[in-house]
């Protein structure tokens, strides 16, 4: 039902603007903070209009070596670590989930149901629950402070496997049979038919998993101890020294803004596919 009532239109817009303000104001404040010197920021009241030091803040964040009390590692390196981590996790998750869903749906093998349920049950165990044993394994394998340690334990994904399984189950049996008659073997069918048909789901998962990987905090906190392997999310935290030390809030804010750019880009660029993947199934 669409009602054209002037009061409701005004109210609707008011709610939207309010929501927008709630979302945008902190971002604006971060931008303002990044454009002042540390001394200006801690002044009371805090300035609400941008100052003139924006570029300096970003430069000292990216290159590092500012004079803050916390970590002063260069953010450019951290961004790179984060990007590699997010991409490896995302691509790894999608690849492994596609293959395991393919196995579960299209092959008959002993204990198939057991494997499916084993995967399914891990859905209910988030990383935090298994974090101690995972850490032990990674540490014993000598993977601390490495890309492998950052990514491999996070790649296995019951959610994505389950999602692809559900999608594969909706692919008509006749399509499989037509491919068999056409002479396509299992991998050929997977590559030529299943993966192209899953394209939109893959895109949606890519967006979700990229943000998941980029935002990882607890796990990198455990497995990285040296500054040159910090992802940016950890980096922000390490820049803030505890106690009364003087933090360079402008650099912290600049780093936070930098850290938001890649996930935002992924969402913006893939939005069309993302929505398509969640809404329609192209069959």
């Amino acid at each position, binding site marked *: 039902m669409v009602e054209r009532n002037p009061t409701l239109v005004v109210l609707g817009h008011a709610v939207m603007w309010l929501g927008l303000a709630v979302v945008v104001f902190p971002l604006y404040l971060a931008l303002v903070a990044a454009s002042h010197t540390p001394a200006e920021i801690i002044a009371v009241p805090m300035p609400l209009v941008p100052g003139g030091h924006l570029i300096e803040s970003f430069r000292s964040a990216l290159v590092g070596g500012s004079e803050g009390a916390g970590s002063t590692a260069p953010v450019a390196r951290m961004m790179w670590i984060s990007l590699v981590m997010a991409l490896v996790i995302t691509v790894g998750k999608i690849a492994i989930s596609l293959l395991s869903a393919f196995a579960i749906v299209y092959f008959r093998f002993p204990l198939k149901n057991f494997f499916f349920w084993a995967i399914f049950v891990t859905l209910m165990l988030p990383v935090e629950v298994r974090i101690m044993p995972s850490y032990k394994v990674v540490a014993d394998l000598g993977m601390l402070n490495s890309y492998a340690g950052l990514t491999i334990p996070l790649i296995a994904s019951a959610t994505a496997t389950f999602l692809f399984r559900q999608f594969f189950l909706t692919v008509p049996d006749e399509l499989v*049979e*037509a*491919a068999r008659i056409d*002479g396509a073997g299992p991998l050929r069918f997977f590559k*030529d038919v299943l993966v192209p048909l899953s394209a939109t789901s893959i895109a949606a998962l890519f967006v979700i998993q990229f943000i998941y990987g980029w935002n990882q905090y607890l796990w990198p906190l455990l497995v990285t101890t040296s500054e040159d392997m910090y992802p940016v999310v950890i980096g922000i935290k390490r820049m803030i020294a505890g106690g009364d030390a003087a933090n360079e809030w402008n650099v912290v804010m600049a780093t936070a803004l930098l850290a938001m750019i890649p996930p935002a880009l992924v969402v913006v660029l893939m939005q069309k596919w993302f929505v398509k993947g969640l809404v329609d199934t*192209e069959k």
Partner: protein
Amino acid sequence: MAAISILNVVKSYGHGPRANRVIHGVSAEIADGEFVVIVGPSGCGKSTLLRMVAGLEEITGGEIAIGQRVVNDVEPARRDIAMVFQNYALYPHMSVFDNMAYGLKIAKVPAAEIRQRVDKAAAILQLQPFLARKPRELSGGQRQRVAMGRAIVRQPQVFLFDEPLSNLDAKLRAQTRLEIQKLHRELGVTSLFVTHDQVEAMTLGQRLIVMNAGHMEQIGTPEEVYLRPATTFVAGFIGSPPMNLLPGRAEGSGFVLDGGTALGLPQGAPRSGAVTLGVRPEHADIAAGDGWPLAVEMLEMLGAERLVHGRIGPTPFTLRVDGTREPPRIGQTVRLLVGAAHLHWFDAADGRRVG
């Protein structure tokens, strides 16, 4: 091109005593270039039989040979067959051209030859304007033609059709039926066609295999199946409206219906005792005299003809008369005459034809 021989084929699901047997020993010989239709009600095993020929279902027992080669353990792709599915099963993300070319690409046919074969098939099926389109941009009839095109380009020994016309509307179905017939005349490829629609079966098939509950009831030309049905099932399944079946007892030169009505016969029954008498609706005629008494209950005007529904004694009986003739009145009892040539006798117990 090749003949198909189906020898005592059995299909069951599951193992041991709890196995569920769905096809009970079917045998048929299909000649090279023949068009055979497998027809039966849903669940009779007709599709399963076809899928066993295709290699999509395992054969539990018996043997299927395509052109002298036993194919029981041969992969579908190596059986030299092509199949058209009920829902077409086109690859949704591929263009019409790619859909038709996919099998050839896998078979590593050179690109130029693929192009040429697809173009030729597209010309036969009038699909040239659509080669670059995706299946979802096509109508049901066009998709159906793409599915046939995919079968044609493979130049197989055998075409298998699994109810390919069921998803089309009535007009398109009639048209496509003719196209399939034409195609078969042009290409002359051995074809097996599964349908539940008797009109399709009668019009397309050079021979029909009528199936019921996993058994083959009859194999024969449309004329044989219609004019000399082998069992009461075939008599009741083929023909619309179906053959009237009157259960009763043959005694001397007469026939007594269950319920006691005695009917005179133009000539004696082939055997006495419990039998079922079959009469096609168009083979009885209203006449003066002492024919069979039909109490008229309902009339249906179909245009060229009129159906008269009624009862002889307790048994329902349908009569087909010329639409231009004066119909009997509802409630009236008319007398029917049936020629001796049009009486079909079946065993009352197992339904097999006895004369």
